[in-house]
């Protein structure tokens, strides 16, 4: 069974209702001589409906988790999940990208490791890089950062919790290092 991007979006719309804030279907034409359409479903949802949206996706097909990432956008953190649905069928894979805004005062999300064991790596990375807590995540040891990494420092944050004071050159542009000359 495969579904088209519009059908997936409709299913999500029906189950999420008002929690769906923004929606978009992005279509790209890929290929050199024989063009093919490839679609992606991009949605922005309310953080409270996150778990429901993920469960809805798991009902359609067992997805493949592409990535979890996040960006520090001032007052909020924007967390992005991307799932690949219907992989294994030629030309039919559709990415479903879920975005949610997390206020910095309450950086908590439910874990998805009970549905997909492999998501542990991604969640542990986001936890140490951005400081988002995942409710229900069992292993909380640092993954990429050393075990003695100082508490309350998150490399991807752009506020006072960031690491700019810890690094000498890597965070500067070439221009800054050369003193304004490029």
């Amino acid at each position: 069974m495969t579904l088209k991007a519009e059908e997936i979006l409709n299913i999500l719309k029906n189950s999420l209702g008002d929690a769906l804030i923004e929606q978009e279907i992005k279509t790209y034409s890929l290929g050199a001589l024989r063009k093919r359409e490839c679609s992606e479903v991009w949605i922005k949802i309310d953080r409270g409906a996150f778990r429901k949206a993920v469960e809805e996706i798991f009902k359609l097909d067992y997805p493949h988790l592409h990535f979890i990432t996040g960006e520090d956008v001032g007052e909020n953190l924007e967390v992005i999940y991307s799932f690949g649905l219907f992989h294994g069928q030629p030309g039919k894979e559709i990415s479903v990208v879920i975005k949610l805004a997390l206020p910095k005062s309450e950086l908590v999300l439910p874990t998805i490791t009970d549905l997909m064991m492999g998501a542990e790596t991604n969640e542990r990375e986001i936890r140490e890089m951005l400081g988002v807590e995942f409710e229900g995540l069992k292993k909380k040891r640092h993954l990429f950062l050393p075990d003695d990494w100082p508490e309350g420092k998150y490399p991807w944050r752009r506020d006072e919790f960031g690491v700019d004071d810890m690094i000498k050159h890597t965070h500067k542009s070439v221009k800054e290092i050369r003193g304004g000359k490029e």
Partner: protein
Amino acid sequence: MTKSQYYIPIGPIHPALKEPIRVEAKVEGEKIVEADVKRGFAHRGIEYMGMKRNAIQALYLSERICGICSISHPYAFVVGSEKALGIEAPPRAQYIRTIIAELERIHSHILWLGVVAHEVGFDSLLFWTWKGREKVLDVLELISGNRINYSMYMIGGVRRDLKESHIKALKEMIDYYRIFNQEMKNLFLADPVYKARTRGVAQLSKEMALKVNAVGPTARAAGLRMDIRQDIPYDAYADIEVRGIVPQDIVGEVYGDAYDATLVRIYEIDQSVDIIEYCIDNLPEGKIMAIPNYVVLLSKIKRTKGEGIGAHEAPRGEVIHYFKYDGTRDGPAVWKVVAPSYNNINSWAPLLLGAEVADIPVVVAYIDPCMCCNDRIAVVRDSSGKIVDSTTLHRMAVEKTMRIKKELGVKK
């Protein structure tokens, strides 16, 4: 009763590992009862650096994420950036990209076959396979000028064109690998010792492969028909109808073990050779860059707002890059890299449970791990807790070398 459980740390630096990672195993006798993996020993904060640089600088940086599959990350980078920026590469460039990516798959798979032969203790086979790998490296050097880090790709095309002499060399190479791969099939797949050492080791079921989010040849060896070249075809792959290679199509049954992983990789070399042959026979004419001027390209990036996901099927599995260009600077505002080993290492902990200590190298090697891909800030502190900068580190390294030389009595 006496203590029967022991803790065995393997790595980060260990003779059986080519790159740093730590496997912490608890064993009872020979059986492993608990396993944990600690990553990050090669973390260099490349994504962080990329977000401070312009897109072209970050593209070259992405090539240095991995030393073996150095074109996989640029490939996902250009595909993702082109989606985000709305640029389309000319057909000829798309074909050349595919050729380079497949050349790399051949050399990476042969490298793995050599490594796994070494891990099972068959060193003469290691030297023989790596001798065969030289051919493809020579061709890559001829085309790009380098054995690794080819710097071929650019957002919206490729930097170097294929000449007649390159095509001649590619054709010669194709003939060479048709024969060489047949020999490899005989040596690996038909060899009773190799079969005895790998059959049933590191066995991953289809369900488990899905749950741990396995990708690439690891997932395909477990019978999952997933391959980015097939699922979301891009560039020349969309013209070729690539199909993922799974053991059930070749031998009719799936074990999902290290033997099946070997099978899948050897047959993928055949597939890569076929793809290269198709591409050079059908190579379209025309230009190779959509925007040949870098200044124009960078100013376009600076003006464009957009997001995109680039995916490429690297030799080890899918590489995914996520980009966000915010329209204020000429580089990515957010850049997230997910490499195949990032996902495939998830399979170690379940696979090691119940295995024997002697199987650890095979389990570790069968996914073809690439730590530099998986880890992407290293800070060194002195005894008082202060961060040591790179100049001091370099001075200390030179001093140490001098001291050792003196101690050993080395004159010049």
